[in-house]
């Protein structure tokens, strides 16, 4: 084993490199566009003074490498530039929308785990049974399911036909005033304000988007849990545990503990993709989160907003990956000490 100090330095170096690549990708996005930057920044007919100022501000007369470095410094400093359409600072626009996205993802991941883990375990323990086939078929169907179609099917049934769910128009009924920002979650904030009408509305708005996302997460998770548990069932230590006549519950715990690193790594790998799926779900439900902002910006070719959005999702996924790595290391330490 190498010293922890060197490991940390190596990981930090890797993190810096990864961040720079992500910044470079977002930088390239604007370079790909075929509109001259002066037109994009200064409107169709910029005056010479405006042109000169823009060239100075953005270093447009400098080589691409220098432009990139200036860009990287600005981005890493959290200055994402201004939207071409609204003129608002992109970083601020993204920041105010972050709680909406985090809230949606948090509930969906929890519910998705509640769906995915038990069904995956049950399917693996009854491999080949009718139950297993239904779970596996459902999992594959979920993998093939476009997020927007599932959202629309749920809306058709529960909003249009049964009229149980509210219209897909954001996070709270349009006739209500959103609660004052405490945590940024309309649901939690209205509970804290003891506003039962707002609470009920915020909760109702959450149900369909969370269900959509949770079903998609659950489908992917079911298949990966099933696969990981199946591998565990073939190990010698599991055969020994079974031969000892342990109860089904204990056997499940043993298999799950062995499968946990695989499941954890798999879930971790899927996180970036989950951000993409979340954006689509937000788009359908007009959720007003980061994802919807990003997709709207793409439709309107508002490139500074697209850049900021891509940068932010990349950084977010990188951060979650790093945190997951820390959790994994701590867990391994605990297991080896125990």
């Amino acid at each position, binding site marked *: 084993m190498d010293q922890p100090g060197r490991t940390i330095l190596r990981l930090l170096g890797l993190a810096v490199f990864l961040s720079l690549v992500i910044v470079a990708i977002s930088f390239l996005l604007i370079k790909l566009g075929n509109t001259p930057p002066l037109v994009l920044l200064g409107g169709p007919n910029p005056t010479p003074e405006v042109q000169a100022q823009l060239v100075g501000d953005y270093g447009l007369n400098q080589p691409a490498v220098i432009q990139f470095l200036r860009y990287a410094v600005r981005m890493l400093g959290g200055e994402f530039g201004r939207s071409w359409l609204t003129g608002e600072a992109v970083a601020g626009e993204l920041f105010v929308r972050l709680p909406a996205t985090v809230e949606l993802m948090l509930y969906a991941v929890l519910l998705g785990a509640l769906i995915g883990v038990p069904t995956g375990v049950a399917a693996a323990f009854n491999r080949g049974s009718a139950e297993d086939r239904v779970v596996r078929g459902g999992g594959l169907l979920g993998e093939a399911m476009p997020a927007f179609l599932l959202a629309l*099917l749920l809306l058709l049934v529960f909003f249009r036909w049964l009229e149980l769910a509210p219209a897909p128009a954001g996070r709270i009924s349009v006739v209500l005033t959103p609660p004052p920002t405490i945590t940024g979650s309309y649901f939690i904030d209205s509970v804290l304000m003891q506003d039962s009408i707002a609470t009920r509305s915020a909760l109702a708005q959450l149900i369909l988007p969370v269900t959509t996302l949770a079903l998609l997460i659950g489908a992917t998770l079911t298949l990966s849990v099933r696969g990981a548990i199946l591998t565990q069932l073939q190990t010698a230590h599991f055969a020994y545990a079974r031969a000892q006549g342990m109860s089904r519950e204990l056997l499940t715990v043993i298999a799950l503990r062995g499968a946990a690193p695989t499941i954890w790594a798999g879930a971790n*790998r899927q996180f970036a993709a989950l951000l993409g799926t979340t954006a689509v779900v937000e788009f359908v439900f007009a959720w007003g989160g980061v994802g919807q902002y990003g997709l709207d910006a793409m439709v309107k070719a508002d490139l500074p907003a697209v850049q900021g959005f891509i940068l932010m999702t990349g950084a977010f996924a990188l951060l979650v990956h790093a945190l997951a790595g820390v959790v994994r290391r701590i867990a391994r330490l605990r297991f080896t000490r125990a």
Partner: protein
Amino acid sequence: MIGRVVRRLGSLLRGLPRRSLAASFGLLILVGFAAVMAARPIAWPHGPAQVDTAHILKAPSLRHPLGTDANGRDVAARVMDGTRYAFAVPLAAVLLGIVLGAPVGLIAGLVGGFADLLLRRLIMAVGFIPPLLLALALVAAMGPSLRHVVIAIGLLEAMFFARAMRAEVRAMHESGFIQGAVAMGNALPRLALLHLLPNTLARIAGEIPRRVAWALGTLAVMGFVGVGTAADSTEWGEMVREGVALMYAGPWWPAIFPGLALLLLGFGLQLLAAGISDLTGRRPAALGGAMGGVPH
């Protein structure tokens, strides 16, 4: 030679239902879509652009089994016509991905050292950006056109194939295959082209259905969001987008049927991919559905 290939393919297909039911069903769905696409111009009474002013937004009936859209066009004919996009764009993108990505992965795996490390770290870094969103952003930056859609999806597929190819070549290093071939006196270019490429491509080919499924899903999201595909085309995602506002008002068939076609074709691809994994005993390198993407 061709006769032998056809005979081998025939015996493979005959034995398939016994060996993998999933793969057979998947293949059946793909063949079904291809057949419908080919037969539509001669066998279907309505054209995709044919306007029937007497039947605007009519619910599914015998005359129009999937109903008509807001312009009085037959939804069934349009869904069948959209199969062209669903086959052509993902296949072109995956092909582009193999052509761009496989050589890079092959060389990196063969050369090893710093080039290999750099490639791995680059792919890892890009993998943190949600692949679906990156593909959409690329199209948004390049401007809307079908060619840009293929390029954007193809670039992300290239990352996948570079990574997969590199892993295969490294596995061959470990098995001693490469050392053996070098000891036999093969120069590196000859080794790469004659020995590594055929052996690795065959293994990578098993991933194609899953990658096509990912490309299909990404194309549909582009259409649904309204990035890249032309307005009023019969691309399924685009058809769903145009149908959504109608669905909230009542007529659901213009939005839901193209979506179901997408689901069915995607499910067929996933079944085929799962069947191939079962047959070859290889675990998939990455999941490829709505949640799937380029792994890091």
